[in-house]
């Protein structure tokens, strides 16, 4: 079955330190991976997607098919990065699309 795992429920780092939020997936097809973020009292929103190969708010994520990973990284964490982060996998089949989300990692950036 398709799965997305995020091993850390909570990750605390100090401001200015590097941060890496881990995400691993299992899927036999061609994966589309996303990172979503939910800041306190705000709506869930897309942070970045692997296809775009972009850097958003200093975050990057590289799809590693060999390790089936899509870890989210930022070299210097900021307090405003504190939020809940979800890794998500999109799959397509004959019926259309389906999404599987990881359980989420709460990032806390300490001053």
């Amino acid at each position, binding site marked *: 079955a398709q799965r997305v795992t995020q091993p850390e429920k909570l990750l605390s780092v100090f401001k200015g330190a590097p941060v890496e939020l881990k995400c691993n997936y299992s899927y036999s097809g061609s994966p589309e991976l996303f990172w979503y973020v939910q800041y306190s009292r705000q*709506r869930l*929103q897309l942070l970045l*997607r692997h*296809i775009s190969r972009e850097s958003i708010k200093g975050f990057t994520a590289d799809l590693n098919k060999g390790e089936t990973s899509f870890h989210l990284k930022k070299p210097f964490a900021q307090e405003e990065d504190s939020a809940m982060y979800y890794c998500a996998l999109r799959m397509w089949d004959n*019926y*259309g*699309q389906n999404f599987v989300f*990881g359980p*989420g990692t709460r990032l806390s950036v300490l001053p």
Partner: protein
Amino acid sequence: GAGVSQSPSNKVTEKGKDVELRCDPISGHTALYWYRQSLGQGLEFLIYFQGNSAPDKSGLPSDRFSAERTGGSVSTLTIQRTQQEDSAVYLCASSLATSGGAITDTQYFGPGTRLTVL
């Protein structure tokens, strides 16, 4: 512009009652998605619509759940004979389309409806 809106924001109901949750997508968005966010299950994809059509309803948790979309706009998620395990935040999202890259298939989420079944 106006984002995705959902109503009600909170709903408390008694076990066994039916509830209807509403989602108003961003104007012009052809795709609409429903998710459930609960403490024990995390974020769970339920169903999506392309226009008024839902290609796959297998993600709905049980046959007590149904969803419809009319006029390519508003969608309702109906839960019949609610159970305590239905308590969750129900999220709706919309996108311009379901594919085509970042501009067209980025999902914009609503604030959610918090459903509590007593």
